[in-house]
């Protein structure tokens, strides 16, 4: 009976979102305040019913209700309780419910935190989001209802959750990723509302910015968690495989990164307006496309859900209407927002344009590489694959150029920057980066290493330009403390995120170039050296987990004869599904990770295994943490709240952009 309540909640949420998608929009069009005012209560209703639905699904998992098909497929009586609850998003149906619930959460918060915006604008934003969530719930009810029953005879026990998904990072990864993905729908809705109302000005950009920054920060975190999960759970020794399902979040992230920079220009200078709107649409498209690829079975990969072409067709329909419709609207409305290019070739606007160009091009090249095999097959009927080297060859140079500009952008000035000013500001920074880049690796490694030098030059370039900019900002203040206090949260956010890139760069480069791995066969007592470490296989024991059996191998790691760590990699056999799975052992460290994955045990008792030493591996995710933190700092800037009041007043005068006046500033 309870699962039927779940379906019922979904149907109620569908009805409410249908209302949310239509009434406020009609109200905004005809000026009916009552209809516009319905939007906020409706958002609460949708949130409550979707929350109820997801709780009911969790309840079905907790109580082992295997009559629910989704539960029977993804759980098992032996499964520990925390994994039962997280199995809610361990498959297509449940994770889509989670996705929809997250969107409901975003919609609710847009409704709650938009008191200072004009009512008709809020009504349009919420209506666009209402239409989106309506199509999602409809999709769920039509093709993938998580509450479907197995009739007439439910199985006595479930099939178990995929063993790779029984893991802490997996508990966190999908919700975070979805949260970020779905956040871009909010920015998208703002853009569509702006197009609909013809109000595409700096105020629109200012309202969107905190949402864009927040979604971006969460998406950063989500991708980082996913890469961390892949690193220690899939056990192939890498953190990023350019897998067709990994790529769409990255594409959305790159477009989102371009968007948050372009929004800054639009807010501050009133230019790039149509471009920013287009980017908002593209970033959202990236997130929808990610869903499409994961759930349609279009591309097969480790992460793909069991596929169903009908689902693919349905999502393609949503995709076509939502994105096609908004791009058409864009084409029709964008001519309304002509803005003069009120800046010189050497100006911060131009540097940010470069940033956008680089980010969009790298997103496009990843998109191309991801879809190319499919297109090729459709055209020639021949199968090809595109290897990771393609992505590295394209992506790495683009990112290095981006980093070079990253040092210049924040120091340059709006409208016009002279070359002499830039060279005065950055000449010493460049010189110091060169010295650090050449010197540091030489001191530490006692040999010349080109990769280390290049990495250090770029990393120091980022770091020192941040320091230089900070120093310039506080230079003419009375005290250092006062100077630092005077800077806005969004400034600190930007610099924190940029600093995160420096850290990630070091992590990625050093892990890539100085990481070592070795596949060996070790019998008990055998040992092998890798780098400065020696790994000794001590013995094998049998371990029984709650829902698996495992062979555990004890490996002792020594450095210069001194024992530094014991590692316990396992090879597990999950009882319910009969799937084997290797559980790698990691010794994490700030400067290096050591890890071991097991292969098979040979007849003579020796184990095949791969041993890795990964210098600076942690820095990859540490950098991502800094970026996410920076994004949230920027989103929390109180400026957005304060300025809203002002823009309202400006907005009583229709359609005139508040920045047209400031396009030719007095200065």
């Amino acid at each position: 009976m309870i699962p039927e309540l779940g379906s019922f909640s979904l149907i109620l949420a569908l009805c409410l979102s249908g209302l949310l998608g239509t009434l406020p929009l009609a109200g905004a069009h005809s000026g009916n305040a009552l209809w516009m005012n319905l939007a906020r209560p409706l958002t609460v209703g949708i949130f409550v019913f979707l929350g109820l639905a997801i709780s009911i699904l969790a309840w079905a998992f907790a109580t082992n209700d295997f009559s629910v098909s989704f539960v029977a497929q993804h759980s098992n009586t032996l499964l520990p309780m925390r994994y039962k609850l997280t199995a809610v998003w361990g498959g297509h149906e449940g994770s889509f419910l989670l996705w929809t619930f997250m969107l409901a959460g975003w919609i609710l918060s847009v409704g709650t935190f938009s008191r200072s915006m004009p009512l008709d604008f809020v009504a349009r934003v919420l209506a666009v989001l209402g239409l989106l969530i309506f199509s999602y719930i409809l999709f769920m009810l039509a093709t993938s209802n998580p509450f479907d029953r197995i009739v007439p005879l439910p199985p006595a026990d479930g099939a178990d959750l995929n063993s790779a998904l029984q893991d802490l990072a997996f508990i966190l990864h999908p919700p975070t990723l979805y949260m970020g993905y779905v956040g871009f729908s909010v920015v998208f809705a703002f853009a569509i509302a702006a197009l609909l109302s013809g109000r595409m000005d700096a105020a629109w950009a200012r309202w969107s910015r905190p949402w864009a920054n927040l979604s971006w920060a969460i998406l950063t975190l989500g991708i980082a968690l996913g890469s961390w999960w892949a690193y220690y759970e899939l056990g192939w020794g890498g953190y990023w495989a350019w897998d067709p399902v990994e790529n769409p979040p990255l594409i959305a992230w790159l477009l989102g990164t371009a968007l948050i920079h372009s929004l800054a220009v639009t807010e501050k200078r009133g230019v790039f307006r149509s471009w920013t709107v287009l980017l908002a649409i593209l970033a959202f498209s990236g997130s929808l496309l990610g869903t499409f690829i994961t759930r349609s079975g279009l591309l097969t990969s480790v992460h793909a859900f069991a596929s169903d072409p009908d689902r693919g067709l349905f999502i393609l329909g949503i995709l076509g209407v939502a994105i096609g419709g908004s791009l058409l609207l864009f084409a029709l409305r964008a001519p309304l927002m002509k803005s003069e290019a009120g800046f010189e070739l050497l100006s911060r606007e131009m540097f940010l344009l470069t940033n956008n160009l680089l980010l969009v091009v790298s997103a496009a090249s990843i998109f191309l590489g991801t879809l190319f095999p499919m297109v090729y097959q459709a055209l020639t009927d021949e199968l090809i694959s595109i290897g990771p080297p393609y992505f590295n060859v394209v992506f790495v140079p683009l990112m290095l150029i981006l980093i070079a500009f990253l040092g210049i952008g924040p120091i340059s000035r709006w409208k016009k920057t002279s070359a002499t000013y830039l060279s005065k500001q950055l000449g010493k920074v460049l010189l110091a980066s060169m010295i650090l880049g050449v010197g540091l690796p030489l001191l530490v490694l006692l040999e010349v290493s080109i990769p280390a030098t290049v990495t250090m030059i770029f990393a120091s370039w980022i770091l020192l330009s941040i320091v230089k900019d900070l120093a310039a900002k506080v230079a003419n203040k009375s005290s250092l403390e006062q100077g630092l206090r005077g800077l806005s949260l969004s400034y600190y956010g930007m610099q924190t995120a940029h600093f995160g890139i420096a850290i990630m760069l070091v992590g990625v480069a050093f892990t890539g170039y100085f990481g070592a791995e070795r596949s060996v066969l070790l019998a008990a007592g055998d040992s092998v050296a890798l780098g400065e470490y020696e790994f000794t296989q001590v013995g094998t024991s049998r371990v029984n987990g709650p829902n698996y059996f495992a062979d555990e191998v004890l490996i002792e790691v020594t450095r210069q004869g001194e024992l530094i760590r014991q590692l316990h990699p396992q090879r597990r056999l999950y009882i319910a599904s009969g799937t084997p799975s290797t559980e790698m052992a990691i010794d994490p460290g700030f400067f290096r990770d050591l890890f071991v994955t097991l292969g098979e045990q040979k007849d003579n008792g020796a184990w095949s295994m791969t041993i890795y030493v990964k210098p600076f591996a942690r820095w990859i995710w540490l950098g991502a943490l800094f970026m996410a933190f920076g994004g949230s700092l920027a989103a929390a800037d109180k400026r957005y709240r304060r300025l809203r009041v002002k823009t309202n007043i400006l907005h009583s005068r229709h359609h005139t952009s508040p920045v047209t006046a400031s396009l030719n500033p007095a200065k």
Partner: protein
Amino acid sequence: MKPHRQKRLGIILFITAGLAIAAGLTLFALRQNINMFFTPTQVVRGEVTSGVNFRIGGMVKEGSLMQAGDSLQVQFVTTDFVNEVPVSYTGILPDLFREGQGIVAEGQIDISGIFQASRVLAKHDENYMSPEVKAALDAAGASSENYSMALESES
């Protein structure tokens, strides 16, 4: 108006140049890194030259897996039930590698006709058959006559 036009032209030139360079880079990288996919039959017919990286897909022939006792070297035969290609690989096979299951291997064919794999892929999902393996079997026209021939020639 005139300096304005110039500026606009400058921006457009800048964007175009940027895009052109990026497009060139992308196409170059794409050409270098496309791995063609071949079936055992195509390999046996000599459609592949040695020294070129490609992917081969097929079933691991039952009873063909040989593991060295003292190293990580393995050898097995991949088949599309019409033709067979021996594969040699040094390293740890994926968790789900089994005889009689589909795999995809990446690497090169050497002069003696053995495929030297640098990577062996089997999917992380029990229900999975790689589209490449499927295509290999389709391409070989895997009808029952062919199976009979293939299996009889082995016995």
